[in-house]
């Protein structure tokens, strides 16, 4: 198994820059998620790694092999990779067994060896009973498992997954998330996993690469990107958050009439800055704020939603800022009630403007 390294990768279609100087090193046996909204360049990045497209500049290296460089790409079939496609791309004119064994056939593996590995992989993916079926006769989940089996049977150096779960319904998706992680722990292929679903990235990835507008905006473990987002985009995209715009003022952030203390992050060097605080970190109290207590602000409930396991409030602070607050069920307030929001400083994270 090899490491995958991207250095200074750029790709544009006409004026449209889809990959803007990507640098990324993926370690042996690591599962990395490329996470971002649609159009952020994550699928392009995966296709650059697969060799379906060549970069305009930069290199893709696997192990000690330079596979892509400016304007040229080693063709996909020579990259020792395998891939699971968003559409699964099962060949409708071949049975499950033929689909899965295709890669081995091309490698001129002996019939006996093909049969041995086929039996093994169909067992792992629970497909033995379906080996004679055609893809059109399978359910979405079964098709997904065939795609998985077909990708794993060739024992690739690198495994690429392009939104593999986006066509499944919610229950199946959750099950397959753990399945993919389980198979990764069993086989330990270097894996690049593209998704727009942060939950999927959180449950499967060793590291998450957050992308936006053709750039990598942050790389870190799921915990790191969730707890220590470095930009407003990452804070919003992963987990959802409240953003307060303000100005730096002697170690505090001043947002309208409010002076807010923060416990982490980097307010940047400019005068303008941002504070991020997640809805579930905010404490909601009844009545007016106690005098002199730091980060306690008066507000009014604008909207209340009962979510079963929690309550979701929208509170307008006296400075006019709207805050989402997620509380336990016991915290009850009606629309129009005057409340106090406590933003614990250690949960307030400053982000450079």
């Amino acid at each position, binding site marked *: 198994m090899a490491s995958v390294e991207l250095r200074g990768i750029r790709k544009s279609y006409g004026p449209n820059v889809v990959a803007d100087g990507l640098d990324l090193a993926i370690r042996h046996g690591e599962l990395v998620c490329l996470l971002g909204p649609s159009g952020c360049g994550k699928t392009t990045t995966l296709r650059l790694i697969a060799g*379906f497209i060549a970069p305009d500049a930069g290199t893709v290296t696997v192990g000690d092999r*330079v596979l*892509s460089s400016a304007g*040229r*790409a080693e*063709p996909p079939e020579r990259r020792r990779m395998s891939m699971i*496609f968003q559409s699964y791309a099962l060949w409708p004119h071949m049975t499950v067994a033929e689909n899965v064994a295709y890669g081995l056939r*091309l490698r001129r593996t002996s019939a006996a060896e093909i049969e041995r590995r086929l039996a093994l992989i169909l067992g792992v993916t629970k497909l033995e009973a379906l080996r004679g079926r055609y893809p059109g006769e399978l359910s979405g989940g079964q098709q997904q498992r065939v795609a998985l089996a077909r990708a794993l049977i060739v024992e690739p150096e690198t495994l690429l997954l392009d939104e593999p779960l986006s066509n499944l319904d919610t229950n199946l998706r959750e099950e397959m998330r753990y399945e993919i992680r389980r198979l990764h722990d069993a086989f330990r292929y270097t894996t690049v996993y593209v998704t727009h679903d942060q939950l999927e990235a959180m449950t499967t990835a060793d590291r998450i690469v957050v992308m936006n507008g053709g750039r990598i905006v942050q790389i870190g473990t799921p915990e790191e990107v969730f707890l220590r987002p470095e930009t407003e985009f990452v804070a919003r995209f992963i987990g959802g958050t409240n953003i307060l715009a303000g100005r730096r003022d002697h170690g505090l952030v001043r947002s309208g009439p409010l002076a807010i203390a923060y416990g982490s992050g980097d307010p940047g060097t400019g005068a303008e800055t941002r504070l991020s605080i997640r809805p579930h970190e905010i404490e909601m109290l009844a009545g007016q704020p106690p005098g002199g207590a730091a980060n306690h602000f008066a507000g009014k409930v604008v909207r209340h939603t009962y979510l079963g396991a929690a309550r979701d409030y929208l509170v307008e602070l006296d400075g006019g800022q709207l805050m989402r607050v997620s509380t336990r069920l016991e915290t009850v307030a009606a629309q129009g009630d005057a409340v106090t929001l406590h933003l614990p400083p250690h949960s307030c994270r400053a982000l450079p403007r």
Partner: protein
Amino acid sequence: MSGAPPSARRRFDPSLLLFGAIAAGLAVLVAMPIGWLGWFSITDSAGDLSLGAFARLVSDPAMRKPLAITLAIALGAALLSCLVAIPLAWLVARTDVPLRRVIRALVTASFVTPPFLGAVAWELLAAPNSGMLNQLARAWFGLGEFEYVVDIYTAEGVTFCIACYTFPYVFTLLANALENIPADIEDASHILGGITWATARRITLPLILPAILAGALVCFLQALTIFGTPAILALPAGFHTLTTKIWSLFQYPPQTNLAAAAAMPLLLITLLVLHLQRRLLGRRGFTVIGAKNTPPRLIRLGAWRLPALALCSLIMLNPVFLPYFALIKAAITHRISDPLSLETLSLRHLRFILWDFSGTRPAMINTLILGFSAATIVTAAALVVGYLSSRQLVPGARFLPAPAMAPIAVPGIVMGVGLFLVYSRPPFLLYGTLWILVIAFVTLEMPAGFQQVQAAMRGLHVELEEAARIFGATRLVALRQITAPLLRTSIIATWSIVFIAVIRELSATILLTTSETKVISVVIYDLNESGELGAIAVLGLFLLLVTFAVILLVNRLPILGGPARVRM
């Protein structure tokens, strides 16, 4: 893991060379005849720049009148097509009229019937003296010997005969549109309080109107540029349409400059109409169509089922029942004026076509050679272009469909004039050979072939091929093992469509054929001039048989090899 080299190498893909050659060939195929056509239209016979040809086009009554007649006929045929196709399509697509599948099959039969054959059949039926319908009328109503009720040798007759074979365009587009209006869209209107008539007017009509107009425009174009029908029906009556006029300008002494200028209005009107049609269909894009939705509700006709069926049959009398009957009768009776009875049965015409007439065998052979070669070349080229453009393989691949689609704007007779100008002089002296016909058919049928292939490629997810690549297949292996088998049905369908179109082509053929390179359609036209209608009937039925055999074969395709269980 095996087979991959340790380091990346830059490898030249030889297939790109072939791709480039095909792209260049396509461009030349269209650009040369149209370029020459344009050049000839603005020069005189000495080769000097001159607008004399255009001046004659607008000033000479012998040129102006055919243009006016052509426009009137085209307009009439389009209107008549709508008039019959709209009720027919509605009945078949939205009501429980009996025998809907049979009616559809009959429309398909009209669609593939060569219009010139239909015109000959209608000569048999409605010529003022010998026409069967007129004979019947005389017998029934006791008319005098030279009295008649219908005369096909008129502008109205030409219009009617053209409409018989153009209405399927409106029918098909409209029936598809009607079938694709999901019941829930109409339900939504009902729920919102729209009564049935309001629903029809506000919801259904706006959804189907573009289909009707688009169909009518196709009819208009077909009627505008058709050669066979007016050549058979208008020339004996002593008037010209633009196409027959162009043809006559090639008779001795040839006036090629004037012919080139006369072809220009056809080219320009076609461009204009196609532009209109694209705007019509493109703007709203029929977004409901193709969406997953509930099938339309069939309207119950109740007591009106049989009258509705009668109406459908009445309509289908004209393009199918009557002409086919006339052809069969003419083929098996001794003389065409004979009544159909045991005494008049004769194999004379069959014998004449098969043994006595020396023109049959070479024409059949030529037709088959041309059909096979043009269909094969078009299918292959369309596949390559469709593949390149849908996969964006070479730089500029997205510009490839343009030259492949360009001939759609060039009517057959216009293409015929252009090709004649290019290939009847050095350096490309192909006039008089089958090659010029191959080039003509390949050029003319490329758009149809390409559209077929493009639709198929769109339905074939690019990831299917990419999957093969990533698992170790080279591009060519992926093409052979994945793409080709999945496209097989479309490939055969494309081939057949081109084949059928080629064996019935007359408009371009008539200008490019010589005594050495006759094809069946031209032989039929020649026999018509010498009045051998019985022999035409035999040849025409043969043409129809081949056509129906090919269609039947295509429709049964899914059973032809391959796992029938494949579903996607």
